[in-house]
C-alpha cells in the first residue's frame, strides 16, 4: 500500500467516519459463529469505555484488562466480544514496529489466551497464542515496519470495528476496507486451521488451503464409505425394491463387477437408493482402499442378505416374506451369483448355489 507520510492525526476523524460507515456495511457481512457474533455485537456496544482507554496508551497491554474489570457488569459476551477485537488491533499495532513488537506481545500473551478462550469458548491457549502471533504476521503484509504509532479511534465510536490506520499507511477508505476484509479472512483461516488437524504445521495461505482441501475430500470419502457400510450391513430390506433393482441391474450389466457392486447397496436399505450410484462411481475410481472396501462390502452384503433373509423368515415367520426371499434369491441366484463368482464372490459361491432349493431357509440357517 502506498505510504503517504501524511499527518494521520488530522485525518483521523475523517477516517473514522469513513471507517464507521464502511464497517457498518461490512458488519452485515460478518457471519461469525454464534458466540462470536454475540461477542462482536456486545463488544460494539461496550466500546466507548474501551476506546478511551486504549486510546490513551499506545501499547495496550494493560488497558484492555482494566475496562474489562470495570465492565464487570457488562455481559461477558460483550466483554468477550470486545476482547475479541482487541487482540487483533493490538497485534496490528504491535506488528508495526518490530522492536516494539516483542514487549507488547509478551504482555499480550497472558491476556490473549483468556480473551480468545472467552470468546471462542475453547480452552486452547496454545492455539490462541499461535494464532495471535500469526495474525500479527499475517496482518501486515504490506505495512511499513517503520510505523510505530497506532492511531485511530479518537474517543467516540460507539459502533465500529476497530481498525487502526497506521501512520504512513494509506488511509483512504479502500485500503481500510481492504484491511478489514483481510482481517476477516485471516480470522476465518485461523478458525479453519483449528478445525483441520495438522494444519498447524503449514502456515501460509496456500499451504493451509491445500491442507483444507485435502481434509475436506478425505472427510467426504469417509462419509461415503461409512454410509455405504451402513447401507451394506443393515439387513433392513425391502425386497420388492431389491427385486426391481436387481432385474434392472442384471439386464444392464453382464460381467461388470461395477454393476454388480452397484447391485449390492440396494440390498441394504431402501433409503440409500439416492446414493447408490454416485458414491459407487466415486468410490470406484480410486482403485485403492475404497475399492477394496467396496469389495468387502459387497461380500458382506451377500452374507447380510442371506442373514437378513433367515432372520426375517425366522423372526417374522411370514410366508409372504419368506416367499419373496425365496423368489428373489432364486431369480437371482443363478445369474447374480454366477456373475459374482467370476470376480468378487469367489469364496461364496457354494453357499448360494445351494440356496436355490425349496428348503431355502434351512439352507440359509445352516450357512449361518
Amino acid at each position, binding site marked *: 500500500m502506498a505510504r503517504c507520510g501524511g499527518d494521520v492525526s488530522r485525518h483521523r476523524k475523517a477516517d473514522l467516519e469513513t471507517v464507521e460507515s464502511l464497517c457498518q456495511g461490512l458488519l452485515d457481512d460478518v*457471519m461469525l459463529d454464534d458466540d462470536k457474533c454475540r461477542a462482536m455485537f456486545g463488544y460494539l456496544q461496550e466500546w466507548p469505555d474501551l476506546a478511551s482507554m486504549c486510546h490513551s496508551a499506545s501499547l495496550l497491554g494493560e488497558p484492555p484488562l482494566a475496562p474489562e474489570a470495570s465492565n464487570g457488569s457488562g455481559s461477558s459476551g460483550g466483554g468477550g466480544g470486545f476482547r475479541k477485537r482487541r487482540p487483533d488491533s493490538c497485534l496490528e499495532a504491535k506488528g508495526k514496529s518490530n522492536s516494539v513488537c516483542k514487549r507488547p506481545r509478551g504482555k499480550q500473551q497472558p491476556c490473549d489466551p483468556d480473551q480468545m478462550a472467552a470468546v471462542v469458548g475453547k480452552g486452547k491457549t496454545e492455539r490462541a497464542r499461535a494464532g495471535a502471533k500469526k495474525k500479527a504476521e499475517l496482518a501486515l503484509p504490506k505495512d511499513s515496519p517503520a510505523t510505530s504509532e497506532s492511531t485511530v479511534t479518537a474517543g467516540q465510536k460507539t459502533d465500529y470495528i476497530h481498525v487502526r490506520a497506521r501512520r504512513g499507511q494509506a488511509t483512504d477508505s479502500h485500503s481500510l476496507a481492504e484491511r478489514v476484509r483481510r482481517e*476477516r479472512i485471516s480470522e*476465518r483461516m485461523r478458525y479453519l486451521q483449528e*478445525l483441520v488437524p495438522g494444519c498447524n504445521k503449514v502456515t*501460509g495461505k496456500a499451504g493451509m488451503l491445500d491442507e483444507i482441501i485435502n481434509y475436506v475430500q478425505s472427510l467426504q470419502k*469417509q462419509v461415503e464409505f461409512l454410509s455405504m457400510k*451402513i447401507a451394506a*450391513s443393515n439387513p433392513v430390506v425391502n425386497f420388492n425394491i431389491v427385486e426391481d433393482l436387481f432385474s434392472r441391474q442384471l439386464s444392464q450389466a453382464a460381467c461388470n463387477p461395477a454393476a454388480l457392486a452397484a447391485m449390492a447397496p440396494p440390498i441394504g436399505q431402501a433409503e440409500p437408493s439416492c446414493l447408490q450410484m454416485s458414491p459407487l462411481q466415486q468410490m470406484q475410481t480410486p482403485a485403492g482402499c475404497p475399492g477394496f472396501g467396496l469389495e468387502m462390502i459387497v461380500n*458382506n452384503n451377500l452374507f447380510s442378505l442371506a442373514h437378513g433373509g433367515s432372520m426375517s423368515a425366522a423372526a417374522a415367520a411370514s410366508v409372504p416374506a419368506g416367499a419373496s426371499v425365496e423368489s428373489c434369491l432364486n431369480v437371482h441366484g443363478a445369474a447374480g451369483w454366477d456373475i459374482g463368482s467370476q470376480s468378487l464372490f469367489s469364496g461364496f459361491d457354494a453357499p448360494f448355489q445351494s440356496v436355490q432349493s425349496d428348503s431355502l431357509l434351512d439352507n440359509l440357517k445352516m450357512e449361518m
Partner: protein
Amino acid sequence: MSSRRSSRGSAAISEEEINELISKLQSLLPSARGRRGGSGSQAASTTKLLKETCSYIKSLHREVDDLSDRLSDLMAGMDHNSPGAEIIRSLLR
C-alpha cells in the same frame, strides 16, 4: 514461516495459485454442486467461502460421528460371529 510475506515483491505463493486453490475449495463445497455447466461460477467472496467451509467441515464431522454411532449400534446388534461383522470390524480397525 514469516519469511513468506517478508516483502511484497517476492510473493512466494502467487495470487493466482491461491485463487486457484480457493476455487478448488469452492468446487468441493456442496453449494457449488448445483452449478450447471456454466463455466464462470461467481467468485464468492472469500470470507463467505471460508465461512462456508467452516460450517461444511463441521457438518461433515457431525455426519461422520453420526454414521459411526449408527454403525457401532448396528455392530452391537449383529451376530458377532457372522463374517459380515468380522469384515466391518476389520475395516474399522
